[in-house]
């Protein structure tokens, strides 16, 4: 067991720190709409110009191709600099769609899309969930009927983050008529400007409007936009699971330490009676857990996984810890949490964090995965 950075790594850290210090935007990022798009793209373009875009992307696709050590250093410095959350409108492109195209796309698809993503010139959204296919994703019904050189798409997607400002969508649809469950799906690149697409934004419980329903009415998508084999979309969607441990989610995980430390500072500065109060206890436990989340994050990177599903534990632990931390914040703020103006980022984050245990696999589904795929418990009849 070793945990050492080389001298070259240390100087890499210095240059990352220096660049971030000089370039991190100081204004609060807008939460939604065209302003969110412009802000996220401007920040990504800045990183791209400085050579800091695609730090986990292989060099052949224009990324930095950094070692895990240097990725960690970048994430640590990113957090330290107070840079904006990476969970913005560029997240899907950089961490999901891009890697999928890299892995399964044609040369044309790679040549066209990857440079645009890295340089901050295209926003992607994810079209997986449907009204009838949430936790049970294999229940997808949106269809793509083959007609000549096109797929004619009809149906509906929902909970699509940034659909209103995206250029492209990674769209999972049923292309083999009459197919069931995981079979007969295709992973398709959908241009969001195509005729027949209607986006209806949905306001979330935090009052922000960054997700939407998307309706498809005879939308013609060229068959050349299918990524991977036709009808093999489920496997294509699963390919990027392996990429997950290299995503900017690491930044989010490391950010929790900073959050709980500022909360502890806030609590102690307001004379919180740490010895006897349940808030003091909760903060202490959350602080220890944020430290453990860092250890867990590093271990998923630097230890051979026992199962392919080890990532489920860190994902779920992060989700629930962030909810606990923002829940504590509401308590520390006390009656002042009624004001949406003051300390608004704590309140906003508290409300946004409800999505952590729902989006991308609910906590319940994650626990099923841990129980069945890691512990080997039997699947139940009633899902």
């Amino acid at each position, binding site marked *: 067991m070793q945990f050492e950075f080389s001298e070259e790594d240390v100087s890499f850290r210095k240059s990352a720190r220096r660049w971030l210090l000089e370039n991190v935007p100081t204004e609060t990022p807008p939460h939604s709409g065209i302003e969110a798009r412009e802000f996220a793209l401007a920040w990504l373009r800045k990183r791209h110009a400085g050579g800091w875009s695609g730090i986990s992307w292989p060099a052949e696709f224009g990324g930095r191709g950094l070692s895990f050590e240097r990725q960690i250093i970048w994430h640590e410095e990113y957090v330290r600099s107070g840079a904006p959350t990476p969970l913005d409108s560029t997240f899907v492109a950089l961490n999901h769609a891009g890697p999928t195209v890299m892995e399964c796309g044609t040369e044309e698809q790679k040549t066209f899309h990857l440079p645009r993503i890295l340089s901050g010139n295209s926003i992607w959204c994810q079209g997986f969930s449907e009204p009838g296919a949430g936790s049970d994703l294999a229940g997808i019904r949106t269809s793509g009927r083959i007609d000549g050189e096109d797929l004619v798409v009809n149906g509906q997607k929902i909970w699509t983050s940034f659909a209103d400002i995206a250029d492209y969508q990674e769209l999972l649809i049923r292309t083999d008529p009459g197919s069931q469950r995981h079979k007969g799906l295709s992973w398709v690149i959908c241009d969001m400007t195509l005729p027949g697409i209607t986006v209806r934004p949905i306001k979330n419980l935090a009052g922000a409007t960054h997700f939407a329903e998307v309706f498809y009415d005879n939308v013609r998508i060229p068959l050349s936009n299918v990524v991977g084999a036709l009808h093999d979309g489920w496997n294509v969607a699963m390919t990027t699971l392996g990429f997950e441990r290299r995503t900017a989610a690491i930044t989010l995980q490391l950010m929790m330490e900073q959050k709980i430390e500022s909360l502890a500072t806030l609590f102690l500065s307001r004379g919180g009676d740490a010895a006897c109060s349940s808030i003091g206890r909760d903060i202490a436990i959350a602080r220890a857990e944020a430290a*453990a989340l860092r250890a867990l994050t590093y271990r998923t990177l630097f230890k051979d996984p026992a199962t392919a599903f080890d990532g489920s534990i860190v994902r779920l632990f992060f989700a629930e810890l962030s909810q606990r931390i923002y829940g504590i914040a509401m308590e520390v703020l006390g009656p002042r949490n009624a004001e949406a103006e003051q300390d608004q980022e704590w309140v906003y984050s508290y409300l946004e964090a409800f999505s952590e245990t729902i989006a991308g696999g609910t906590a319940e589904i994650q626990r099923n995965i841990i129980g069945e795929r890691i512990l080997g418990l039997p699947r139940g009849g009633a899902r």
Partner: protein
Amino acid sequence: MIDLNNSVEQTQIVDSVRAMLAESYPVARLREGSRSAVDNLDVIAQFGGFTMSLPEDDGGAGLSVVEDVLLHTELGRHIVSPSALARTIAVRFAGETGQTELVAALLDGTRKACLANHLGESAQSQTGSANGEHLHLYDVGDADLALVLGPRGVALLDVSSITHTHVASTDRTISLSRAVLGTDHALEFRDATTSSAARMARLLISAQLLGMCEAVRDMSVEYAKVRTQFGQPIGSFQAVKHRCANMAINADVLSAQLLFAAIAERDGWPDALFQIEACWLLACRYTLENCRSSIQVHGGIGFSAECDAHLYLLRTHLLENLGATNTQRQQAVLRWPI
């Protein structure tokens, strides 16, 4: 270079420790009816288990606290006597305080240490009317030294210089004694900011707790696979499955933090003590949670003394009270410099 896998040597250590413990310290030895006297730790001593991290020149194996942590995780799994903690830490303590003769005596077995817990001064309401510092001693047996753990750190005490009386123990697998130190018996504690022995105590207690945290997870999962009700293994029901998943999360998070804290201590990171305090806090909390869950997953048999689950529960309560209370641990983590 970062690599968090066990090295080949570490894997070999873990494998041989497991074989040794399965042979000489099966958990079955602690079950009602088959329980013998206090654990004899000679097999672990002969294995070199108490001197792994001692320099080779001093008769040790020249390894580090990381290997001690791996060993004590396995000792926890086998609910080995708290004297194993005492014997490992006492050598380190004697070494760092320059008591070379004592180091030699501990190594050749002419002196032996048991573990003691400092209950605070004048704990009259709990332990009678005597004034002074109150101690619990565990599995004294033929030990003539006690390694004392308290909020102020660790200290060594000559057992022959005190009188101790046997009392019934909540953890029925150990022998418990009570002692009161007179005012002439001031203990000289060394605290965790300066003493590596004190930090080691926290790490090794955490390691033993992790071993138990994992053991009850494994027991529960195995039981949930074979116990059937309503015509299905109970592990197919989400209520049980999710309880098991929570146990897996607890154990996994704790093992990651323990690994990190042990490396931090070995390599002398500036925040090593914080990593250790965070680990210790979670170790006590998560292991207790897992023990309680394990009893629930086992249902009726879990409530019986025939099931091992309660052995882990009772030992966890013993370990979580060593050296500090939960409140004290929380204070340390909360107030660590920000």
